[in-house]
């Protein structure tokens, strides 16, 4: 696929703390495409540097942008650099200029005192909070669905972890004064549909969730203001929940006294109300519910599938894991198709919603070796052995297997 385009104005924000980050590693430097290991469909994707404030990304769609994080980025630490943090937009009318002086966040609806807050009101006028949290697309890994399903054919890079800084949503809602009888808070951003009458992207949370003290309005990630494509100037952060709720360019909060009937809350982003959001293709009569809490995942990041390692010698394995809506309790590996598991050593704990690194080593004899890696979260929920299936390819989190040859 050919990349059209135009001005590259990437990365004027730079990236703090990434430690001499190379854009792509080693021999991949000159690559213009990448092969995603997708079983059902075209594997080749363009690599692009054409997007503002972004380094090399996997191009899934130009407009509205769908940009996947190259997987090797996840080997470089638990925090995903802003300029390689994945991007996903629903509608193509996205403001390209944001003036911080004139921007306003409104709070309206079932409140005592509607608000129109400036960015100064938010940054300097409310308590500042920080939280490390994984942001993951509901459809991350959809490209591995078997049978295939329609939608962005992501590999595993529609996720990232950042240290978010901002204010508590609760503090903003308290300032407006939520009236008795309020049920939900609905969030919308500056993006708009192209076609008149199309449903503006909006998402709602139950009011108790919105006021839990963890849901944030972030104005910074990893110490810098957000890249425009990640939601500058304000983004909702809903720790432990899928990214569909993390509304970008947030400029409108409505407190609702009746259930939100808008398309994106009521009709989109639904999963089967079954364990692991699993069903069989064509299964009838399955109750569908809005996607919600994330589930645990883990990945090997320092070796690629198909790699050759040295037989009879210790080979280091490392990767990342996250617990979803709870912390990482353990990350275990199996070399015998899941019969026996042994624990790995966990890296520093940046908080229960963060990526956490793990490491171990293996010393396999000559021959084929399959490494399975499994995260169990602190609620006791472990990754399943087989991949779930649903018609939208949501909530994949099966145990990953890495096929190696020891020689």
């Amino acid at each position: 696929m050919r990349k059209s385009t135009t001005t590259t104005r990437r990365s004027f924000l730079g990236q703090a703390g990434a430690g001499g980050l190379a854009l792509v590693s080693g021999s991949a430097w000159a690559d213009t495409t990448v092969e995603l290991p997708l079983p059902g469909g075209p594997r080749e994707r363009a690599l692009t540097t054409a997007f503002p404030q972004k380094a090399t990304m996997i191009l899934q769609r130009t407009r509205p942008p769908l940009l996947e994080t190259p997987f090797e980025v996840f080997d470089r630490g638990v925090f995903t650099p802003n300029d390689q943090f994945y991007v996903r937009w629903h509608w193509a009318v996205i403001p390209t200029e944001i003036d911080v002086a004139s921007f306003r966040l409104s709070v309206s609806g079932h409140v005592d005192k509607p608000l129109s807050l400036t960015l100064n009101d938010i940054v300097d006028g409310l308590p500042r909070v920080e939280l490390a949290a994984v942001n993951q697309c509901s459809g991350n890994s959809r490209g591995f669905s078997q049978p295939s399903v329609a939608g962005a054919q992501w590999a595993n890079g529609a996720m990232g972890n950042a240290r978010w800084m901002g204010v508590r949503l609760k503090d903003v809602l308290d300032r407006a004064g939520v009236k008795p009888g309020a049920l939900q808070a609905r969030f919308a951003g500056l993006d708009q549909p192209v076609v008149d009458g199309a449903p503006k992207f909006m998402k709602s949370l139950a009011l108790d969730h919105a006021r839990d003290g963890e849901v944030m309005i972030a104005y910074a990630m990893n110490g810098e203001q957000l890249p425009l494509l990640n939601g500058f100037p304000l983004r909702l952060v809903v720790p432990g929940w899928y990214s569909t709720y993390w509304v970008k360019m947030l400029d409108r909060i409505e407190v609702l006294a009746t259930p939100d009937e808008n398309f994106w809350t009521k009709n989109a982003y639904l999963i089967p109300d079954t364990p692991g959001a699993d069903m069989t293709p064509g299964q009838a009569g399955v109750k569908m519910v809005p996607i919600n809490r994330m589930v645990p995942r883990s990945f090997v990041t320092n070796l690629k599938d198909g790699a050759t390692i040295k037989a009879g010698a210790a080979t280091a394995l490392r990767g990342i894991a996250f617990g979803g809506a709870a912390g990482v309790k353990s990350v275990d590996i199996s070399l015998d198709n899941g019969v026996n598991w042994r624990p790995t050593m966990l890296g520093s704990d940046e908080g229960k919603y963060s990526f956490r690194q793990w490491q171990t080593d293996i010393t396999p004899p000559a021959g084929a070796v399959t490494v399975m890696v499994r995260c169990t979260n602190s609620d006791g929920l472990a990754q399943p052995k087989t991949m779930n299936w649903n018609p939208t390819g949501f909530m994949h989190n099966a145990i990953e297997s890495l096929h190696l040859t020891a020689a």
Partner: protein
Amino acid sequence: MINAAQVGFGAAILAGVVLAIIGHPGPQDLPAPVTTASPSKPQGFVLKSVSVELPTSDITFPGGAAADAINANCLSCHSAGMVLTQPDLAKATWAAEVDKMIHAFKAPIDQANATAIVDYLSETKGAK
């Protein structure tokens, strides 16, 4: 940039390290979300206005006249890339996708064009 929040965050990490050394009593003890010790008047973070350009795509659907309907009706809302990288899907799945574009997302596509688009997708991306 150093501020009270980050100092607080560092302290929490340190606490986590200490916990790790003395042994982790249980999952309930994972660090809580970190907040500033002193919530009044945070200072030192300045947002700057942003102006960017977003790239456009000039990719069209290949196939000559068979692609006329999809090229004329679909590219105003989204570029072709994600469609071209779809796996092969059943014709009913493509019909449902086009129906979603029309009825849920209000794409102004008449029936003749909708049929031509589904036919094109089924021909080029149909389950074999």
